[in-house]
């Protein structure tokens, strides 16, 4: 008897799996709808950014669907949680693809991004990243993987920041404090390379720290001993805050700059006067995060408050990256035409040259480069933790890029083309 119960248990569970999904001919595409997967950290330490991105993404989808969808197809978003954990991320992506998502978008965590990257290439599924910034997702370039979040990856960011360190801040000895994870190490490598190539300069000292630690006395002391006149702090908000504060508490007098992980609302509230004069990188669409006057920022903010309410991390400026990336996807879907295939979608993305999608920087992809935008924004923190946009225009010069942006300009239209999606009616 017992054994039969056990058999029942086994068989039941095992067979309960196949009923978790539906298959389609061109995966995820019917003449009614297109299924787009979105993977982001929805639980765990990075949740607020992940949820922020997802909400922005859904906002753009709603907008497009309200305008009748694309070629008569409504967009359906399937969100999955990556928990900012590579293993979970891989599982989630496998699930999305298995359940026949036409394309995948999102992922805020770089550590997850590099874990899932090979899958898209193997399964030939288009991926448009937003939020994650490790340069490994686009260099070396993969056929199916794009980075479309409105600002560049860590390669350009690091080159730009390095330039800023030396030319604007006149740094001589740089201490680089980074979290021992993909984000930190990728920024470390890129910045090191940039300093070497541009100014033949080495870090005074590079100091890793582990997530969850709260005593950074050792790191700060070493930076001081190395006589650093600039300390760059990578990693995420909590650790970043503690490092900056402990540095000042230990009487570190030099300049402090911060990596992309720090540029969230929470940081500015918390850092207060300790942050004065601190320079931060920014990953959201250029010039717009804290530019309250910008109509698009206003609009996205209002709408996300209207839909997802206010609260911790809501509205979140990562709404903008999510919104932006969906607009990119939408435009590509439009260009791919009525009889949609994954390959057509990929090619459509690569035809986008200086396309204004109605928010942030114009998008440019090419068969040689899958980074949508090659510039970065920096800003400085003023009294009371108010960030001010720095007028530091930095696009990395061609010879410093692994691939030339536009080898054949003549094959592209002149000037900026405005995407029809930019002008679809806004939501009320």
């Amino acid at each position, binding site marked *: 008897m017992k054994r039969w119960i056990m058999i029942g248990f086994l068989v039941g569970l095992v067979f309960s799996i196949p009923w978790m999904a539906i298959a389609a001919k061109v995966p995820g595409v019917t003449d009614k709808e297109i299924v787009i997967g979105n993977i982001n950290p929805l639980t765990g330490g990075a949740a607020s950014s992940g949820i922020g991105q997802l909400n922005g993404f859904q906002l753009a989808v709603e907008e497009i669907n309200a305008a009748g969808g694309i070629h008569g197809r409504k967009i359906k978003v399937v969100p999955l949680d990556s928990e900012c954990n590579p293993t979970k991320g891989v599982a989630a992506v496998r699930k999305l693809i298995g359940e026949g998502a036409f394309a995948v978008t999102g992922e805020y965590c770089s550590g997850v991004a590099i874990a899932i990257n090979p899958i898209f290439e193997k399964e030939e599924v288009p991926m448009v990243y937003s939020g994650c910034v490790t340069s490994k997702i686009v260099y070396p370039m993969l056929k199916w993987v794009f980075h479309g979040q409105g600002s560049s990856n860590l390669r350009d960011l690091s080159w730009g920041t390095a330039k800023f360190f030396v030319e604007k801040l006149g740094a001589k000895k740089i201490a680089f404090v980074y979290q021992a994870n993909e984000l930190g190490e990728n920024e470390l490598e890129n910045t090191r390379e940039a300093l070497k190539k541009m100014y033949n300069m080495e870090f005074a000292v590079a100091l890793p720290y582990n997530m969850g630690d709260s005593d950074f006395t050792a790191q700060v002391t070493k930076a001081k*001993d190395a006589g650093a006149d600039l300390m760059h702090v990578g990693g995420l908000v909590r650790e970043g805050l503690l490092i900056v504060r402990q540095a000042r508490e230990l009487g570190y007098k030099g300049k402090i700059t911060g990596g992309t992980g720090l540029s969230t609302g929470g940081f500015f509230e918390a850092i207060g006067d300790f942050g004065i004069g601190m320079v931060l990188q920014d990953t959201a669409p250029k010039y717009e995060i804290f530019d309250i006057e910008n109509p698009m920022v206003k609009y996205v903010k209002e709408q996300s408050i209207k839909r997802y309410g206010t609260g911790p991390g809501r509205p979140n400026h990562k709404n903008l990256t999510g919104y932006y990336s969906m607009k990119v996807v939408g435009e590509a879907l439009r260009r791919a035409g009525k009889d949609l295939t994954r390959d057509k979608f990929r090619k459509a993305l690569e035809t986008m040259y200086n396309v204004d999608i109605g928010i942030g920087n114009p998008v440019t992809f090419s068969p040689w480069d899958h980074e949508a935008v090659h510039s970065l924004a920096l800003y400085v923190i003023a009294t009371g933790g108010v960030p001010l946009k720095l007028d530091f225009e930095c696009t990395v010069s061609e010879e410093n890029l692994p691939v030339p942006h536009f080898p054949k300009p003549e094959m592209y239209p002149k000037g900026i083309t405005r995407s029809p999606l930019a002008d679809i009616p806004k939501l009320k």
Partner: protein
Amino acid sequence: MDILQLILKSLSYGSIYALVGLGLVLIFRATDVLNFGQGQLFTMGAYFLVTFWYMCKIPYALAFLMSIVGTALLGFVMERVACRPLLKAPVMNSIIATFMTGIVIYNAIQLIWGAEVRHVSPIISNKPISAGKIIFTAQDIWIVAITGFFILLVYLFLQFTKLGVAFRATSMNKQASSLMGVSVKKVFSLSWVMSGILAAVAGVLLAPVLMIEVGMGWVAIKGFAAGIVGGFSIPGTIIGGFLLAAVENIFGVYVSVAFKEMVSFLMILAVLLIKPSGLLGIEVKKRV
């Protein structure tokens, strides 16, 4: 010069670890349960403060009190959920139970308060004061002071109150003390409530130092290490915490920053293997 500076700083971080570790120690002494949820209990303390003080605009002192009550209550509940039902079950069940309770709290916090970093402005200035080459802040002194104060409080409680005596009796020998009419169950709840209170105190007082975030509970693993190094005795935990911080920082500066935390784990192993009772610790109850 550095050394002196490091040791000075380590005093304040060491007392943070000790304060966080103390709750663990109390529970372990009384109930033989390692509370893997202590970190989350401590985090709750901080979040209660945020809620009452920042959100509900209740005056600090009252908010402090309320968060203590709230966390103590949570501790009480945890004992009922993760400890009492498993008294007869094998050790690892209680380990998992406390751990899972921790995860539940962690996720609950995230759903209620979100994952954004919160901060409360420090009550004591953390502007650097420099005496000669040594630099410290008023906050450092404040932390050491309050830690000392609360540990003294716990000590006095254990020494001079009826419950305290019952507690010590239980931690030494359950059967005997239950025969002597000590209500072991009562002591169990007490120890968890107390560690709840301590967690709240730590959470509230360290909130401005550690930043309030769902992940702030991680520091509990240091408190845990402090407890082991100190052999799960109350004075031992203080010394353990301080030793941990000092060794970590000195190692970090002079040997390797990357492996800084490695030292604490090696310390745990060394202490357990060489002198399992810890520095000035209680005797190890080895199951034979």
